[in-house]
């Protein structure tokens, strides 16, 4: 039995599907992001560099850690330069359709995670009203658990972005409505260091991305400029004792 003849449309359609497949494979190629000296200021990147260098040294790799870092920077940027020549013309289409093929999915698990925390100031004392996974502090807990809001918080894991400040202001507005006697709201992230069981435990935690909001005469939350905020002290207590902290 012979197969029916193929129509011109079937050839055209297959050619288009083939182009789509080739494009998807190209975009999905695991090309590294541009790496700079600044990248290695991150504690996670520093630790990864040290671990990989330690392992490669143990099997005879001759580079020092600095040489190894420079080699990574040069190599990743050279690969990225070539990739960008082909990728740049496709970017407008990807932006208009919101499509992509970048699937890192926990490529490097975060060993220095942040726990969001919201506090109100009542009668001169800070009271924790929201802390992730704390059953006694669940104000706006669902909102801060929601993946899209979590993405906004996580986006400020290196430096505070305007969206983070605006999110804190929104939460502060809600808190001022809920607690009319609250005079200030503090939004911050408690950073811890997760170590694997074969590594030395590190119980130290500290607060970062601290934003304080005061009630404006109109009743809305207004962010206090960073210079007027008292510096937060590094904490060394276990993380589950976090309702006090700096004033």
């Amino acid at each position: 039995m012979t197969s029916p003849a193929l129509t011109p449309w079937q050839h055209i359609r297959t050619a288009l599907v083939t182009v789509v497949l080739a494009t998807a494979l190209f975009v999905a190629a695991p090309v590294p992001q541009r790496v700079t000296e600044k990248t290695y200021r991150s504690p996670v990147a520093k630790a990864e560099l040290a671990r990989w260098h330690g392992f490669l040294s143990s099997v005879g790799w001759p580079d020092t850690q600095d040489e190894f870092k420079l080699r990574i920077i040069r190599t990743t940027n050279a690969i990225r330069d070539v990739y960008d020549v082909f990728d740049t013309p496709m970017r407008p289409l990807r932006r208009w359709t919101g499509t992509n093929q970048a699937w890192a999915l926990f490529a490097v698990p975060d060993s220095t995670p942040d726990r969001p925390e919201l506090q109100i100031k009542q009668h001169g004392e800070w009271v924790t009203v929201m802390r992730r996974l704390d059953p006694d502090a669940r104000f706006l807990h669902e909102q801060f658990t929601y993946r899209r809001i979590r993405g906004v918080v996580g986006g400020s894991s290196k430096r505070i972005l305007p969206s983070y400040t605006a999110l804190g202001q929104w939460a502060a507005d809600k808190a001022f409505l809920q607690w009319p006697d609250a005079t200030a709201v503090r939004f911050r992230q408690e950073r811890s260091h997760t170590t694997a069981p074969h590594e030395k435990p590190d119980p130290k935690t500290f607060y970062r991305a601290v934003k304080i909001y005061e009630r404006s005469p109109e009743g809305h939350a207004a962010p206090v400029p960073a210079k007027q905020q008292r510096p937060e002290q590094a904490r060394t207590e276990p993380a589950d004792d976090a309702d006090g902290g700096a004033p």
Partner: protein
Amino acid sequence: MMQRWNQWVRFWSHTEHPISLAVVRISLGLVLLSDFLQMAWLDVVTLLFAPAEAGGLSNVLSRESMGWWYQVMPATEATAHLHWALLVGLILMITFGAFTRTAALAMVLLWAQQADALNLSDRGIDTLCRNVLLILAFSGAGRWGSIEAWWRKRKGTTISKVSAWPRYLIIGQLVLMYFTAGIQKIGFHWTPMGHFSALYIALQDAAIARFDWSHLRNQPWYFLTQVGTSTTVVWQIAYPLVFLWYWYKRTPDRPGRLRAFSNRMHLHLWWIAIGAIFHLLLAITLELGIFPWAMLAMYAAFIEPKEAMWAWRRVRGDESSEQPLAA
């Protein structure tokens, strides 16, 4: 060379009953609907859709290059809610199969505007959903279990076969995602040198953990996380093998011990089952929102239409309920 090309063309020219694509359409639509309704329930629509000037989190208006939505629409809270409402309407059209192709294409373009305005709120699963919706926009996913199908039936038209290539592309998309996610797991904790501790480390992240998993530091729990970590890496990197298992399933008459073994053991089902278990465990342990559910919705693409029809008949308890297929 020409013969190979013709074989390639014939492969992408297969047609089949639309039920498998329809199940992807309906299940993905329901998952997206739950996500968008959750936004309203949490009262975060303005936050996520409006620019900062109208009470949202986005700085879209202060950028040199902004998306078309806020070029043509006023930057108000009402516009943000209209944007959300239009997306919900399009999701309903996709789920119920009304003007499915147009709705899927419009959904991709309109959703991309929200992603562009506040890209921090747009996660990998949102991108994957748009990729799949874009494929559905060129498919016959609306030909079964839909208002379109009901309308056609009313006019006396039988269900026709649709192109299978959109379903193959969705399968290809899933394989590509798992494989590239697997080979990019370069973090030391994913490797034997890092004692396969990645899953343990990820579960300690208070921002995404569903519960306090600190007890996993003790045995035998830590060992189980190590098994989970190593299985995840191996399974993701080996995911393209599912193509081979499907090829063996499609060509059972050809020789080969591996083919016989694969078909006897239904290895393709094992690959899919491991994936389903993986996503269900993610849903239990981590707060990743729609990620596991949207992935499972897309898994419907792996189901062959005849398998789906068999299941559908079982659900209806009607052995003779299969719709006639046009030649």
